[in-house]
């Protein structure tokens, strides 16, 4: 069953897009990773132009982060001050990256940069997840969670300026650290990758924030960053396709509910192994496309946004 995407100006299979939404929603409920970094390449592989894929995914991330943020906010898992510091970083780089997208798309370099970024990120995250889940499956040792909540004291980078108290996170650290982390997340988000899969482990292992606060604050970061990115992709790059976005949002809401129900039945570490294999497969496919001699050298691209 084909539907017409008015902004991408192409036909896609409705069931395929719904299935993408359901898988991404289910995956994020089962494994805890958002899945934007998997959705964008899947859309690209199924023929959606990279610019539209990158521009539409943030709307889905914003929608699903809104659902997650609400429950984490009620549970008191959000450090607002930490969130604001992260957002100051992510908003500034995301805005810059969106304008850069416009210039790169006009010069015809955008697709190349997107593909290289995805190979790097998917390859890295896929390998780390793979190694970690193999350990979990075969050794069955409980992976050490976040370091136990520590007394607020300066970390190893205590000499940095701008030391600040983050009450909910129960940490004292330089405001530069969340600013820098946020700045990195902003670029990822503008490239359609969300960034929660980097933000959560970085907050836990680098900023030493308790796990539940890291997850809650990361959702706030995803919500507010993706909302700005989605608005800007639509208004500056004309790259948000509303039909594609709505289909994905519906699919992912369904998938999230199924995922939540299945999570008690399916073993988490095996799912993470499956996720790792999918990520590596997508990275290898992109790499293969770059290395193999193309049958057709030319392609028609957008004239420029």
């Amino acid at each position: 069953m084909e539907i017409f995407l008015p902004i991408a100006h192409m036909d896609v299979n409705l069931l395929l897009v719904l299935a993408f939404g359901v898988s991404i929603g289910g995956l994020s409920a089962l494994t805890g990773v958002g899945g934007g970094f998997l959705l964008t390449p899947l859309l690209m592989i199924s023929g959606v132009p990279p610019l539209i894929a990158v521009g539409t995914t943030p709307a889905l991330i914003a929608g699903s982060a809104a659902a997650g943020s609400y429950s984490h906010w009620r549970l008191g898992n959000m450090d607002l001050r930490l969130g604001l510091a992260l957002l100051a970083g992510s908003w500034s780089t995301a805005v810059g990256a969106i304008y850069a997208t416009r210039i790169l798309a006009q010069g015809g370099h955008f697709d190349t940069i997107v593909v290289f970024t995805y190979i790097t990120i998917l390859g890295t995250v896929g390998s780390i997840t793979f190694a970690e889940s193999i350990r979990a499956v075969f050794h069955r040792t409980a992976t050490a969670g976040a370091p136990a909540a520590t007394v607020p004291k300066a970390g190893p980078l205590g000499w940095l300026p701008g030391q600040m108290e983050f009450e909910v996170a129960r940490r004292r650290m330089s405001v530069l650290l969340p600013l820098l982390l946020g700045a990195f997340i902003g670029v990822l988000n503008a490239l359609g990758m969300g960034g929660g899969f980097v933000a959560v482990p970085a907050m836990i292992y680098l900023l030493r924030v308790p796990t539940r606060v890291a997850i809650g604050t990361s959702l706030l970061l995803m919500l507010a960053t993706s909302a700005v990115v989605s608005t800007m992709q639509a208004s500056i790059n004309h790259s948000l396709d509303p039909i594609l976005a709505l289909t994905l949002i519906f699919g992912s809401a369904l998938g999230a509910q199924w995922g939540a129900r299945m999570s008690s039945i399916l073993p988490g570490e095996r799912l993470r192994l499956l996720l790792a294999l999918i990520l590596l497969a997508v990275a290898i496919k992109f790499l293969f496309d770059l290395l193999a001699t193309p049958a057709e050298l030319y392609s028609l691209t957008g004239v420029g946004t």
Partner: protein
Amino acid sequence: MSRLQRALGWALALCCSAGLTCARADSGLLTDLESSHIKIATGFTGQHVFVFGSTPRSGDIVIRVTSPDESVALSRKARVGPFWLKRGKLLVEHVPGLDYLLSNRALNEIADRSVLERHGLTFHSTLAAAQIVGEPADGYQDWQAALERLKRKQGLFRKLEGSVRIDAGQLFSANFPLPATLPIGRYQLDIYSFRNGTLKAHRTSTLQVDEVGIERWLSHVALRHSVAFGVLFTLLALALGLTLSVLLRRGRGRRL
């Protein structure tokens, strides 16, 4: 269906010979379209267009269907180290978005190549009219052949030889499919009548292709009022994400 089409053709021929309102050229070549408007709505997967008409004396009929000129950008991959990367971009202007050539038999049997070229009845002549912006970069010298290849692959440039049927020597009709990805705008249909390799008559009619309904509204709002669209759509996405999760969770609670 084809009986209906033939009946329509006869009806047209009759009404025209009776001097009723009908497109009439001095040469006596008459044409009409079953429908002069294509509406693209949700679920549009392409549409067939039926053209018919009559010609005073037997001969060959060639129909060229073109959509408005567009600018397109071509990218070419080149080897950089071990990788094949897109290198540069060539902007080409005045390329019809769609160019279909329909005829009752092979075009090269109908007239000489030079005659066909003069009337724009080859893709070569179409692309000769296209203009590139600036100088072609290194490796882009064969852009015309590449553009023709890509357009043919997308089904936007097509040669449908034998798709025009001629009945009783004078009535012709053609039923051709337009793809789902067809460009929008006012299409031009040029109908040529050839006899013994020379052009005897030429008539033009138009076909309007528009997006209608929610498609038209969405692309209009998204492109013309893009800031408002961005803000409102993002708010909608947030509200929808939140509402759906609450609703579905509640539904699940009831079922369990």
